[in-house]
C-alpha cells in the first residue's frame, strides 16, 4: 500500500515516536507544540504518499487539507493563546520530565507487547500500530502529568494523531465522510478550546489547570 520501502517507513515511524517522546520530555510548551507540528506534518505526508501511490485524488486532497488544517491552523491558534498567556513552562505534576520520559518509554514497550498478535500482519504495520498506540499512551500521560491547559490540549492532539496513525495502518483510512467529519471536529475542538483558554486566562490569569479544583464531591 504505502508507496515507499520498509526502511523509509520505519524512519518515518521513528520520527513520529521520537516527536511524541520529545513532547513528553519538553520543558517548554512551545517546544512540545513544535514537536507536535512536526509529527502532524509527517502524518499528513504519510497520507499524501499513500494517495499518490494509489492514485486516489480524494485522499491526496484530504491529506493536503489535513496538512493545512492541523499543521497550519491549529499551531497558529495555539501559539496565539500561548503568547497572550505568556506561558512558558509545562508545569509538571506527579512526574518530573525525566521520569515521565522513562514512563513513556515503558509505555512504548508495553504497546509493542500488546500488539504482538498483530505480527501476523505485515511487520511494519505492526510496528506502525505499536507506535500509534504508544502515541496514544504518551498523550494520556502528557495530559495526566502536566498542569498547563495547553499541554493537555496537546495531549489530546497527540492521542488524535495516534488514533489517526492506527487507522492508517489498520484500514488505510476510514470512509472519507467520516474522516472529514473527524478532522472537522478536531479543528472546531481546538477553536473552542482556544476560546475557553482565553476565558480561563481572563478569570484565572493563568493556564494552570491545577488551580481548578473547586468542584468536588
Amino acid at each position, binding site marked *: 500500500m504505502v508507496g515507499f520501502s520498509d526502511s523509509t517507513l520505519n524512519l518515518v515511524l521513528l520520527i513520529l515516536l521520537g516527536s511524541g517522546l520529545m513532547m513528553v520530555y519538553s520543558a517548554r510548551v512551545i517546544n512540545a507544540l513544535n514537536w507536535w507540528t512536526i509529527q502532524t506534518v509527517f502524518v499528513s505526508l504519510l497520507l499524501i504518499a499513500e494517495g499518490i501511490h494509489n492514485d486516489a485524488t480524494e485522499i491526496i486532497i484530504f491529506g493536503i487539507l489535513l496538512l493545512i488544517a492541523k499543521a497550519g491552523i491549529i499551531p497558529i491558534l495555539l501559539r496565539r493563546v500561548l503568547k497572550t498567556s505568556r506561558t512558558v513552562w509545562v508545569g509538571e505534576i506527579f512526574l518530573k520530565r525525566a521520569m515521565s520520559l522513562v514512563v513513556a518509554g515503558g509505555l512504548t514497550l508495553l504497546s509493542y507487547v500488546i500488539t504482538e*498478535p498483530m505480527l501476523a500482519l505485515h511487520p511494519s504495520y505492526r510496528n506502525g500500530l505499536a507506535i500509534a498506540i504508544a502515541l*496514544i499512551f504518551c498523550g*494520556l500521560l502528557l*495530559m495526566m502529568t502536566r498542569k498547563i*491547559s495547553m499541554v*493537555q490540549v496537546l*495531549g*489530546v492532539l497527540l*492521542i*488524535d494523531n495516534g*488514533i489517526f496513525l*492506527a*487507522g492508517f495502518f*489498520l*484500514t*488505510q*483510512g*476510514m*470512509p472519507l*465522510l*467520516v474522516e472529514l*467529519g*473527524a478532522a*472537522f*471536529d478536531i479543528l*472546531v*475542538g481546538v477553536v*473552542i*478550546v482556544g*476560546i*475557553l483558554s482565553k*476565558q*480561563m486566562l*481572563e*478569570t*484565572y490569569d493563568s493556564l494552570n*489547570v491545577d488551580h*481548578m*479544583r*473547586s*468542584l468536588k*464531591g
Partner: protein
Amino acid sequence: MFIGVAVIAAVGMLFSAKDTYLRLLNSVALVLLTLSGGWTIRETLSHGSYAYGSGLLYWDALSALLLSVIIIIAVYVIIFSFGYMEEEVSEKKFPRSRLKWYYFWIWIFMATMLLVVSTPNLGIIWVGIEGTTLATTLLVGFYRSKKAIEAAWKYVILCVVGISFALLGTMLLFASAAPLLGQTLDALDWRMLPEVAGQLDSTFLRLGVLFAIVGYGAKVGFAPMHAWLPDAHSQAPSPVSALLSAVLLNCALYAILRWYSLANLTSLGPDFVGTILISFGVLSLGLMVGFILLQNDIKRLLAYSSVEHMGILAIGFGLGTREAVWGASLHLLLHGLTKANLFVIIGRLVQKTGTREISKIRGIFKIWPYTGLIMVLGLLGITGTPPFGTFRSEVFIFSGLFKTGHPLIGFLSIAFLTIIFAGFLYHFLQMLYGEPSEDVQQQPRESVGTLALAIPLLVVLCLGLFIPESLNEVLNQVVNVILGGV
C-alpha cells in the same frame, strides 16, 4: 431536514439579540422541528423504518424513540429557556448581547444530536457525538465564572479523550468489516453489518467493541468515568443541564446501543457487551449512593442521579432479555422527561433563591407551594416510586436481573436504589419544609401557572398507571431493533 432546520435556526439566532426576535425565531424553529420530526417518526413507526437521502439518513424504531425524546424535551426546555434566560439577563448574569450565542449553541447542539439519531453509520454517529461535546462546551461555560470555566474544561477534556477511544474502536470495527463490505461507508453501516456479523475478525472486533464501549461510556457518564458530569451539569445554565442530562446522555447511550446490538450478532456472543454494561451499571449505581447521600449542591445531586439512571439503563439494556430491554427503553423515555422537568424546576428555584446549596434552601412550601408540589412529584418520579412510570420500568429492568440468575446483584441494586431514595428524600424534605430565609421571603409569590411546568411529570405519572397499547407497540419494536436476531 430537521437537522437543516436546526442549523439554519442556529445561524439565524446570531442576527439579533432582541428578545422578541429570538422568541419568534425559536418558536418557528420549534414548530418546524416538531412537524418534520413528528412526520419522520410517524413514517418510521408505520413502516418499521424510513430512509431519506439515498440512505444517508435512516431511522428505525430505536432512532424514532430517541428522536421523539429529543424533540419533546427540546420543545419543553427551550420554551422554558425564554423566561429563564430573560431573568438571567435582567439579573446581570451576562450581557444581553450574548443571549444570541446561547441560542446559537443550543441549536447547534440540537443539530448534532439529531445527526446522531438520524444516521445509520457508526462513523457518523461518532462525528455527531464528538460534535455534541464541542457544541455544549461553551454552553457549560456560559456564565464564564471560575467554576463554569473549570467545569467546561473538565468536560471537554475528559469527553474528548473518552470519545477518542470510541474513534479507535470505530476504526477497529472498520478494519474488520472493510474486507467484507469494502472500504466504503457500508462497512460502518448498521444496516449492512448484521449480515456479515458472523464473519467479522474477532481480534479487531473485540478490541474495537471494548474501546467503543469505554469511549462512549465516558460520555454517557458510567462510573468511574462520570467525573465530568456533575461539574458540567451543575455549572451550566439550568435549561442546558436539562438538555445534557435528559437528552445528551441518552444520545451517547444510543451509540452504545447500536454497538451493543451489533456485537450481539457477532462471534463475541450476546453476553459479551451485556456483561460489561451490567458491570458499569451496578458500579454506577453503587458509587452514586455515596455521592447522593452526602450532597449539598442541588444540581450536582440531580447530576449524580443522572449517572445512577444511566447505570439502571445500562443494566436493563445489558441484560438483553425482552422484558428488561422493554423496561429500559421505557425508562430511557421516562428518565428523560423526569430529569428535564426536575432540572427546569430546580433551575427556577436556584434562580429565585440565588443558591444551589441544599442547606440554605428551606421552606419552599411556605413561599412557592406549586414549585414545592412539582418538586415532590419530581422526587417521586426520579426515585421510581409508584405510581410513577419509572417504578414500572425499574421493576421490569430488575426483574431481568432475577430472571438471568443474578438475584444477588438484583437485590444489591434495589438496595442501592433505596438508599438513594433515602438520600433524595432527606435533601428534598430539608428544602421543602422549615422556615425560609428572610431574603427569600421577600421574593414574589408564584401563580398557578407554574403547574404547567409539571406536564412531563404528569405524563410519567400516567405511564405508571397504564401503558397505552400504541406505546407498548413502539417499545416492542424498539426491543426488536435492539435485540436484533437474538
